[in-house]
């Protein structure tokens, strides 16, 4: 955990409201993004993300200071999202998210031509992501999108590291094939 984040988390544990607001602002996009991945509904993802932060707030006093905050946060996000899915008592509806919904909060503004090219590639990759299996999409979400280290991904998914590594490689290959397939459909 970097020093800045460590300090903010420590302040939050002491009940500092400003630090808590800073923490929420810093991670709300990632929590919402991961919840959206599982729930595929902005409304539900918003409720789930809010519930995540409530759980985090209550769990901060017992959070081990030497542990990594982001994996802990994303683990809570995954658990909460799965709870929501169970409550819904059905698999997520097979509807695509709009790529326009995706905003990288940290991106500097690119030039219009770059923006168009990047957006079209992102749109393609995003559509391809919706077409691969849930298991592969989940591991890509954690390892490639949220950029968690492999050992944390394995811990969250409760699988051995070797399994996580091979699953991630198969997921990358499936995604790449899906992108190529969509490219081919676009050229026809």
């Amino acid at each position, binding site marked *: 955990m970097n020093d800045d984040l460590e300090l903010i988390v420590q302040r939050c544990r002491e009940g500092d*409201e400003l630090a*808590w*607001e800073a923490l*929420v*602002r810093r991670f*709300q*996009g*990632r*929590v*919402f*993004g991961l919840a*959206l991945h599982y729930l595929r509904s*902005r409304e539900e*993802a*918003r409720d789930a*993300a*809010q519930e995540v*932060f*409530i759980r985090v*707030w209550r769990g901060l006093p017992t959070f081990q200071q030497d542990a990594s905050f982001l994996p802990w946060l994303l683990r809570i996000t995954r658990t909460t999202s799965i709870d929501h899915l169970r409550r819904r008592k059905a698999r997520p509806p097979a509807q695509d998210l709009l790529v326009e*919904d*995706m*905003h*990288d*909060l*940290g*991106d500097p503004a690119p030039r219009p031509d770059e923006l168009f090219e990047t957006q079209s*590639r*992102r749109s393609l*990759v*995003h559509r391809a*992501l919706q077409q691969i299996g849930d298991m592969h999409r989940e591991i*890509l979400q954690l390892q*490639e*999108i*949220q*950029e968690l280290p492999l050992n944390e991904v394995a811990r969250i998914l409760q699988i051995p590291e*070797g399994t996580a*590594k*091979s699953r*991630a*490689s*198969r997921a*990358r*290959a499936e*995604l*790449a*094939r899906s*992108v*190529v397939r969509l*490219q081919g459909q676009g050229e026809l």
Partner: protein
Amino acid sequence: MMDCTRMHELLDAYLGASLGASDQAAVQQHLGQCAECADVVTFMQSDIQSGQSWDAERDDQVVGPVLAATTGRSCSRVQEVLAGDPLADDSDLLRARAHLPGCAGCRQVSAVLDELPNLLPSFASVDPGPDFTADVLLATIERPSLWSVFTTRMRDHLSRWQRRPEFAQELSYAITLLLIVACTLPGSPLREVPRHALSLVHVSDAATVQENGGTVGTQLRQGLSARGVRVSDGMDRLGTHFMGAGRGLVDGDLRAMGENAGQFGCDLRRLWKGVQSPAVDPESVCG
């Protein structure tokens, strides 16, 4: 020494003669020491020199039927290796790269795999909407009520006040002020107490003690009754025993004074119970 992975990265540039001098020398040194890489380079150079490209058409015509009759096409395995299969070693990677020039599909997949690490992290963050932060803060940080803020602050002040050395003096002063106010307010049951108490201090005979003591008791009783406080008949006994104790004191009869003072204490307890809880029978308080 250069490893096979690095060799594989420089392979295309080496075959295209576009390497810098130092990389060219490093590649040649590696080829001199690694038979597998040397085989791949020899194979690819011969292919280039023969003017044939390892394209999909040739692959289908020549290699395709052979693979179909034996192991099947290796594209799926190639793509897994390129995607980072943990079971693949450097030589697998090199062979997978060697597969690419002849397979358009795998080349496309390889290009996408190279692109993914830059694109995927941009999906990590999604804006949840303008009011999200405020909603979370409202749901997490509990706003204390005004009353709890007031009582907390008062407790803090009182605690700090008690620790001050002047606390006892200030408390005595405050109690004195309260007594003065209670004894001087119009209509107070204690209004006449100071005057009669002063008379008691200056008494010289039993008749004066009896007169003033009785007056104090009567006025106190009247004051309490006027406020709706239930006063039992024990009030008469209270006055009688108070005067008896005073008479004993003046006459020097300590036994009579002690008995009357004891009874006076009992009367006070009866009266107090009656005031605090009207349901309690004052007679049952003190046997």
